[in-house]
């Protein structure tokens, strides 16, 4: 930034603050609309994040079991583990020897676990329990796993996985659509505010041109005004969203036993980032649209 630009930018800030003061009602409307949009958006994102996290914890979905043949030797099992660990799309590999499998079974089925006592010898095979990085590629990965040498059988709950993938996809698409719609609405309202602000300062803009102001000098205060609206809007919306989550959603979700709400501390940063990003982008975009359309310089 050149010396002239620095000085000019400093002055632009002052002028834009002044104008926000002059057009208080319009600025308040803009900030309010932005806040409402961000809260709707934030609430949706938080609800879908909780659903996603619940789905992930369902466990059954993201599990692929790989069974080596009964006859496999210790070293063959070891080799297979190495192969699986370096396999594409495999996030983790856990070896479950049959003794451990029996213990897990007993624990999972409580009193029915006694069924295991009816066997003289442990009937369960050794197995590998795999989790996947990308569930959407689950069926391809399973197909490839079946072709690996030293693999007897691969099992996975295809239906559950597919359902979860579908739900997640719907949430993503709906989320994207909501973000787009709300951002457009906010940008439109903000661009109207900036237009009103420019119209109330037509004389000033004309004089700026006459005394040799560059286009950037004339535009800057309005862009800054949009930015300020964006930042104030997203900061207030974030505060309100926090209260809604702590006192509303978390209690509501927590009241259903199997659902464990995500603690706010875990989502605080991404949420703040998203709010600032959406707020600033719509604010700046709204004013750029207005400046381009109505400020023929």
């Amino acid at each position, binding site marked *: 930034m050149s010396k002239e630009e620095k*000085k*000019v930018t400093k002055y632009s800030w002052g002028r834009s603050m002044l104008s926000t003061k002059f057009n208080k009602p319009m600025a308040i409307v803009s900030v309010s609309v932005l806040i409402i949009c961000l809260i709707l958006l934030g609430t949706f994102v938080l609800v879908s994040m909780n659903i996603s996290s619940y789905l992930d914890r369902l466990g059954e979905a993201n599990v692929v079991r790989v069974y080596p043949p009964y006859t496999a030797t210790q070293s063959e099992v070891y080799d297979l583990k190495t192969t699986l660990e370096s396999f594409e799309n495999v996030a983790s590999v856990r070896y479950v020897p049959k003794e451990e499998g029996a213990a897990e079974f007993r624990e999972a089925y409580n009193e029915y676990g006694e069924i295991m006592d009816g066997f003289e010898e442990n009937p369960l095979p050794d197995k590998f329990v795999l989790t996947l990085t990308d569930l959407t590629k689950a069926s391809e990965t399973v197909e490839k796993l079946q072709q690996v040498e030293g693999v007897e059988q691969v099992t996975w709950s295809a239906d559950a996985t597919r359902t979860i993938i579908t739900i997640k996809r719907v949430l993503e698409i709906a989320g994207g659509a909501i973000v787009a719609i709300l951002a457009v609405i906010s940008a439109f309202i903000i661009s109207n505010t900036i237009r009103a602000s420019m119209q109330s300062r037509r004389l000033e803009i004309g*004089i700026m041109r006459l*005394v*040799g102001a*560059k286009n950037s000098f004339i535009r800057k205060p309005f862009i800054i005004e949009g930015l300020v609206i964006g930042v104030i809007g997203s900061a207030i919306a974030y505060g309100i969203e926090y209260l809604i989550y702590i006192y509303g959603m978390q209690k509501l979700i927590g009241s259903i036993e199997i659902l464990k709400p995500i603690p706010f501390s875990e989502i605080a940063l991404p949420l703040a980032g998203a709010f600032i990003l959406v707020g600033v982008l719509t604010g700046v975009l709204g004013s750029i649209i207005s400046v381009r359309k109505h400020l023929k310089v």
Partner: protein
Amino acid sequence: MIEFKDVSMRYNGKHGKKRALDGVTFTINDGEFVFITGESGAGKTTITKLMIHEETASSGEIIVNGFNLLKMKKREIPYLRRSMGIVFQDYKLIPTLTVFENVAFALRVTGAPVKFIRNRVPYMLDLVGLADKANVYPPELSGGEQQRVALARALVNNPSLLIADEPTGNLDPRLSTEMMYLLDKINEKGTTVVIMTHEKALVNAMQKRVIAIKDGVVISDKSGGYVI
């Protein structure tokens, strides 16, 4: 220096093309004091707009302070305007800024240092006799005072050229004479002064070079009194 060479200007009006200027040619050298006279509608305002590049001529060549106006790039316009000061009949002051800020405005636009502004603006206000009105808002001032604020703003950048379009249009005869005296003083300090006016008495009183325009054509260019 201002050079107009065979400049024509046509507007697209309701009844076809309207000719505002036709083959206007004149040269104003540095340090001159020149009146451009004519009745309203003769083409004075068009000449002003062409000089400050608010409009572009249909044909011809215009050179102002070294800028070739028909060939220059859009982003050079601010630099052309910084090389000149402009005063209008309706003053064009910002009512929500103090007299000081109105004058400082022209400096802030160029990114001048705050310290320089703090020294330069009071000096200009003193020059136009408004040192005690720095913190007053324009609507509280008389017409003559407002025009002097506009003059201070036009001169604060120390331009080599001052263009005034009907600067005394809203002033009574006594204030008009005062304004002329002020402009003459500025001219004596080396600034080229170009004044568009249709006020006969003022032009006759000053006895300077007069370029007379009628129906978009230069009909006379000589020193002395009002021609038409």
